[in-house]
């Protein structure tokens, strides 16, 4: 988008939308949408409260443990699947099922098995994130250019050297891509888990605000969540471009 010959930054229209939000709020068209500025004021107050910090740290904890587990389990599993046909044939159908399955349906089971707490939320998060990480790591290993591997072998690289000098780097763009999508899914997973468990983290906060009709508080939390989620997604794709700059030119 150009205005008077200047290129507007890609996300600048969000300012326009924030202004629209402000206008709707100021006109008091609906009780459910307080003005943007009110929400921001509430937000500033809110982040200083203990309740909010507790919710945030609980969420961050469940999120990072869930993601950590999916990365630690997912990447090696994917690499092994890419290297071993037997393992691939055993696991691939299941990975494909779980990647498209509505995992929300499993949360009640997790609640029964693991209780109404952080453990359930961690597992939900991991379940949302892990499959795409596995699948991408697998795809990354499988697409490695044969001549690249042959080149390494012809220059006398042993299997171990070949692995960390060639395989790892050649599959890295896909692996990172998988982790990025996995993280985005995990953000959704952690919130869905908290909503269904509803006594932990932001889930509890939402219950509290919606039952007391604290609209500004509600929107403030939404704003924090959406901004964080978006920032994480953007940061990861920035990282991906930095580390895997060669991804598109292979």
């Amino acid at each position, binding site marked *: *988008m150009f205005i008077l010959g200047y290129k507007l930054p890609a996300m600048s*229209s969000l300012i326009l939308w924030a202004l629209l939000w402000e206008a709707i709020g100021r006109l008091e068209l609906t009780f459910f949408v307080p003005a943007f500025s009110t929400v921001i004021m509430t937000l500033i107050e809110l982040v200083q409260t203990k309740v909010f910090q507790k919710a945030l740290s609980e969420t961050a904890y469940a999120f990072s443990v869930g993601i950590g587990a999916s990365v630690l389990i997912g990447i090696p599993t994917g690499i092994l699947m890419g290297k071993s046909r037997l393992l691939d044939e055993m696991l691939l159908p299941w990975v494909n099922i779980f990647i*498209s399955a509505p995992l929300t349906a*499993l949360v009640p089971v997790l609640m029964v098995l693991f209780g109404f707490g952080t453990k359930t939320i961690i597992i939900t998060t991991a379940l949302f994130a892990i499959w795409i990480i596995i699948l991408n790591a697998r795809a990354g290993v499988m697409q490695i250019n044969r001549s690249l591997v042959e080149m390494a072998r012809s220059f006398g690289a042993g299997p171990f050297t070949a692995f960390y000098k060639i395989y790892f780097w050649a599959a890295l763009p896909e692996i990172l891509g998988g982790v990025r999508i996995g993280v985005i899914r995990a953000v959704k997973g952690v919130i869905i888990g908290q909503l269904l468990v509803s006594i932990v983290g932001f889930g509890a906060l939402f219950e509290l605000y919606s039952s007391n009709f604290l609209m500004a508080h509600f929107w403030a939390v939404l704003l924090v969540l959406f901004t964080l989620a978006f920032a994480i997604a953007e940061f990861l794709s920035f990282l991906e471009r930095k580390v895997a700059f060669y991804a598109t030119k292979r």
Partner: protein
Amino acid sequence: MSAVIVFSAWEIAGRVPISYSFPTFLESMAALAVITLDGSIFVAYAETLKPLVTGIAISGVLGVGIGLWVGLSEKFEWLFAPIFIVMQAAPLAALIPLLVMIYGIGLTSKVFVVCIMAMPVIVLNTASAVRNTPVSLKEMARSFLANDHEVLLKVIIPAASPIIFSGLRLGVSAGFIGAILSELKITPTGVGDIITFSRSIADYPTMYAAIFSIILLAVLFLNLLEKLENYLFEGNNRGYISD
């Protein structure tokens, strides 16, 4: 093959038992047979599919429409794309309590949940497919005297349709998540009701059976869509390669 191993593992784990609330595979299948035979599962699915189908239909039409628009016009891309990009990354499930406050606990809220889950991926896929129509195809059409209307109908839309379709498939997948989430979170109806109710009376085999069936249904349906997609657009992605 691997299904046998996994289901036997489930069976064994159920018999050990890991937890008294973890039924064996056979118990769950028996429960599935029971709810299938007494017909309650069909009633439940009719209820579950209502918001799902409505929501998917709305987000399909609206999503492809907005996507085409965003993909064709730089102005609309600037204006609307950021919203959908944020929506794509954001945990939209957090909007559910708000939707319940505004629209109550009825069908409307559930349709909304399905829509907000399904729409972003449909819009973004459509827009990027439209924007990435091979330039040479558009030039080809123009050099053979196509007007804008014909370029859109005969070149851009057919060229974009595989990606639009896979966007719809991903939308359906997200819609399933939304539909079940709304049944578990907003009010227990349909399959969500079976899950919630059987959990409350500790009838775990039935609960597992219901979950098993909804996952099976979703996976089968999505696979069917993928098959259809491969069948419909067989050559589409290979046609440009000059070898």
